[in-house]
């Protein structure tokens, strides 16, 4: 599983990265987490508000930092 956290470096983006790490640990999943900060790459996903959460190439969330449990749910579904 490949998880990408999209964000240009605002505080919300850093929060999301941390929440995602916690969620992966909690769910006991084997996943690769990557932070994408390049604006051109971010724009390729077509989102307009950062941060964004991408799992295996699909945009799952934009513009908000959800709870650890919500991300665990998203990761289990993916």
């Amino acid at each position, binding site marked *: 599983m490949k998880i990408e956290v999209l964000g*240009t470096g605002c505080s919300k983006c850093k929060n999301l990265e941390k929440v995602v790490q916690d969620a992966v640990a909690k769910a006991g999943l084997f996943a690769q987490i990557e932070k994408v900060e390049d*604006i051109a790459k971010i724009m390729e996903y077509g989102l*307009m*508000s950062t941060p964004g959460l991408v799992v295996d190439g699909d945009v799952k969330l934009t513009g*908000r930092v959800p709870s650890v449990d919500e991300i665990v749910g998203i990761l289990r579904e993916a």
Partner: protein
Amino acid sequence: MFAWWEKLSAGLVFDLFGLEKGSHLGEAVHFFIYDTIKIFILLVGIIYLVTLLRSYFPVEKAREYIAGKNKLLGHVMAAFFGVLTPFCSCSAIPLFLGFLQARIPLGVTFSYLISAPMSDAVVIALLLSLFGWKIAVLYVGLGLLVAIIAGLIIGSMNLDKEVLIEIKPVDASYEEQKIPFKIRAFEAWEFTRDLFKKIYLYVIIGVGIGAFIHGYVPQDFITKYAGGDAWYAVPIAVIMGIPMYASAAGILPLVEALSAKGMLMGTAISFMMAVVALSLPEAMILKRVLSMKLIGIFFGTVGFGILLVGYMFNIIL
């Protein structure tokens, strides 16, 4: 609405603290305590409501509506959506590029980008609590007008080549994320709490200085010494507003105190618009995707619009 608090705080200051009613110190302390608590209550309440409401208008939805509209309607809708959607200057770039990717014209994109920060939740909350709903509505209405007209002007100048990054067109269709009300309500609360933590000190300082002005500065101070209705009052207010983004929360209480001492309302509104719409940090962020020329034109056009609003106001009111 706050008559109960006016009474309670007066009792506190004049009876409990024993300060003399009508004295400079007494009036200043009363103003400070009354105003700080009143502003805090209104700030938290209004920011919370605005944030919760805006969570229902994600910007992707706005983009879908605006894309493909005819030009004038596009400008008007972009300006209105700027008020409705949540905005944070940290996502100004993805927002800007996202609009262009959906083949929304540059000028319409600017109408949005000018309108969005102007209707900042903190500013609206403070305007409502300090100046009342009439001034708040006027502020939002004139902000829309500036956004529409400045966007139209920028759009007519053929500046597409001033965008420094390649735009790959995408489909603007948008699938709504389903978020339960409980989560929205909680996230809006978290957002309000974090924002409040960031600005409360500015508010206290602003009200503190305002209280000093309220109690000690004579009634006709501004008219007498700072040229209240002189022609240069508005441009000075606009220029002073540019570097003051972070402390908007502290500056508004100050503006209230100054307008009570004779600063004209148009000058005050121009100043507030300049504080939020012409922010240096936002310009620095945009520099990564826009040429300096385009940023200059953007600031120039909006600044000019704000000036006009200030002069208009000073003449009417």
